[in-house]
């Protein structure tokens, strides 16, 4: 798992004498809620990363699950297994299923965000730096895409691309790049009129050097904030797609698919199949949002105390 603040430490802008990362860290820690969010998120990320070593079962290995153990309530014992959170309709241990589901959800969220950040960021920078026709074309495409609901675009992309984790990531990148393009373009438009860019241009530095060595570092703070929030958004979108039954293969459920499996049994009272993955998803998204909100405050120069 990639930790958003580890990127931050290196790249936040240069201010006063205090080392920037320390100022940043102390600002961030001012909000106890954000620290709590970060702690929870780290725990979730660790449990997702180490899922294969800490779960009692590999829920994706069809050898280990048995349909005859289907829909057991939490705490049931069957053979050598104790199902702490019960089983789903296919006999999958819910606890293992949730950890593995988190793995899928987080990696899809992180991978799609990083790729979209890279692509959208580059495109937005290019648009802002070169301006003119390039800018118009790129930004109109982004506007056009943003005028459609994200879920609709994701649905279309997934139905064209087909099943698989990689396809979901591509679809999510396709949905998200425009946010980054727009965000970075706004900042870059302001930055490129600054004197240091003028100076760099006078030195006849190459476009590439100016854009990536001078412009980009000064445009990152808003990108990081948008990125954090978008990770949560991507996770939610992936869960929605899985809930709708498209994207992830049904034998390798992510959180959304686990919730969907249990949703069928809600009226029958088998609450645990939907409930626990739902809670896991909720906590993940809330914790990421807590971190994201605090990052926004810390990195916003207008709120500088």
């Amino acid at each position, binding site marked *: 798992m990639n930790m958003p603040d580890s990127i931050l430490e290196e790249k936040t802008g240069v201010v006063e004498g205090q080392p920037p990362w320390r100022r940043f860290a102390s600002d961030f820690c001012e909000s106890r809620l954000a620290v709590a969010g970060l702690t929870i998120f780290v725990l979730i990320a660790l449990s997702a990363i180490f899922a294969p070593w800490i779960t009692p079962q590999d829920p994706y290995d*069809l*050898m280990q*699950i*048995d*349909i*005859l153990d*289907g829909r057991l309530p939490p705490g049931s014992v069957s053979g050598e297994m104790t199902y702490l959170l019960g089983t789903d*309709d*296919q*006999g999958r241990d819910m606890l293992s299923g949730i950890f593995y589901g988190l793995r899928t959800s987080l990696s899809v969220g992180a991978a799609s965000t990083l790729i979209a950040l890279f692509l959208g960021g580059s495109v937005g920078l290019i648009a802002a730096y070169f301006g003119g026709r390039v800018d118009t074309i790129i930004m109109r495409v982004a506007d056009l895409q943003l005028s459609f609901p994200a879920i609709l675009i994701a649905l279309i992309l997934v139905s064209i691309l087909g*099943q698989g984790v990689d396809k979901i990531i591509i679809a999510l990148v396709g949905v998200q790049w425009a946010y980054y393009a727009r965000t970075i373009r706004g900042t870059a438009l302001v930055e490129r009129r600054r004197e240091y860019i003028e100076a760099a241009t006078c030195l006849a530095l190459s476009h590439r050097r100016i854009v990536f060595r001078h412009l980009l570092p000064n445009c990152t703070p808003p990108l990081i904030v948008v990125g954090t929030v978008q990770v*949560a*958004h991507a996770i*939610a979108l992936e*869960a*929605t797609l899985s*809930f709708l*039954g498209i994207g992830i*293969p*049904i*034998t390798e459920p992510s959180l*959304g698919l686990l*919730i969907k499996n249990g*949703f*069928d*049994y*809600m*009226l*029958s*009272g*088998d609450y645990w199949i939907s409930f626990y993955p739902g809670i896991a*998803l*909720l906590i993940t*998204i*809330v914790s990421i*949002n*807590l971190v994201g*909100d605090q990052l926004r405050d810390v990195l916003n120069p207008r709120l500088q105390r």
Partner: protein
Amino acid sequence: MKIRLISFAAAFAMTTLAPVMASAADLTVGLASEPSSIDPHYHNLGPNNEMRRHIFESLIWQDEQQKLTPLLATSWEPTSETTWEFKLRKGVKFHDGSDFTARDFVYTACRIPTVPNSPSSFTIYTSAMKKIETPDPHTLIIHTEKPYPLLPVELAVWGIISATANGVTGDITFNPDGTGCGITSFPQTKEFNSGQATIGTGMFKYGEYVKGDRYVMNRNDAYWGEGTEWDTVTFKPITNSAARVAALLAGDVDFISKPPTQDLERLESEPDITLSSMGSNRVIYLHMDQYGPSTPGVKGTGAPDGTYEGEGPCATSACEKNPLLDRRVRQALSKAINRDAIVDKVMGGYAVAAGELLPQGFFGTNEGAKPEAYDPEGAKKLLVEAGYPNGFELVLGTPNDRYINDAKIAQAIAQMFTRVGIKTSVNAMTKSVFFATRNKYEFSLYLAGWGSGTGEMSSPMRALVGTRDKSRGLGGTNRGRYSNPVIDDMIMEALSTVDDDKRATLLAESSRMAMEDYAILPLHFEVTIWAHRSDLSYGARADQYTMAIGINSKK
């Protein structure tokens, strides 16, 4: 602080209408799927056909078990190998008061091939008739080109409309060329939907039809038979199953079709609600690609060792052997499936494990044909014998919204196959994509279902097991492309044998051979369930139709 959460569509959507005070003789039925039209000859589709039977009667009725019983025809018999005589019921009137005679039958047979834009035509049920004679208004003599034992069954599938009510008064001569027997203006599909042309002889009359919302029928007081106790029946399409169950629990509807398996326990525990169920003849099966030396969904079997007629050794870039050509592998697959576990755990007990393509007791089945016993050790041994001691990898294709719990069954099967060493992954997709993919032969193994309209073994054998051959009408849905000329010949012979006993024997024998060769793996027969108020009863039907005709109040 904004927290993004996903909002799930609330499935507990109840209708907001205040419950209307219904008199005792009104009935409201919640349907899982609605008809595409009221036109009885527009679309050969379950929901259309079940609605059609209320209003337009056919010559022959199929009872709950799909046995043929008299309706507008009182008796019928073959008078030679290629001619049949039907005696028609006297004193039957259409809803507009005109008399029902043999002419109306001919008129309807003339209309069927002319219906424009029909998504699935009824022509297949009229094409066998080459000549129709009407010596008197209540006798029909039908000639077929070849011996055609299925004629009475097919005449139960389409309903008869009135010639007089549609403005044809003279004699009509049947012409098998499908151009309408010289009649130029048949009623249009939209005239049926508006009720203008919806005039039949049935015990119900057209009341009102609002597509997507309701189809109201009123009692036909002039009905020739016993008739119905309901003054008015309203059919409401409620396609979301949770909403349909909720509507029943809330009392908005009195009767629903297809309550979802997972809600059955809950419904059973309600004192005011009763379930009616009936084993259907819809078999859920696995088709295995048995066409070429290689197959798209298999990995880990090595290169194919022979060339195949008409194509090279590799049909795919993976270039792997097709293990499914080996009967032992097919048998191993069959033995690996725990059919009882699927019935109990996935289907909630509402299914019957299958040993043939039609349930016991149906025409052309082998008495005592048992489902393959669950034997994982035996399956492993067979795989070793066949040269796959380490198994192989397999992709199982399945629709996820077509049959009851289809994707769940496929997952359970994937578990069972994996246990005997065949690592199986499930590729589940929505039905339109699934059927398109299947028709391109992109599955090595797929799950599907077949409901037999005629209720006899010729239907699944012909469609699912016969070698694909358009000219003989065989193998229409045989996308596993199993081929056995001996079985083909037996099916063809049965299809032209009018003698029932002889035909049953032929069909049973062909079925036995197909099962012994593991041409196709039957899993189970769906059990159709209806949920309704406890003071109602339903004559549950094997053909899965939901009809007010069978709904009665308990006295």
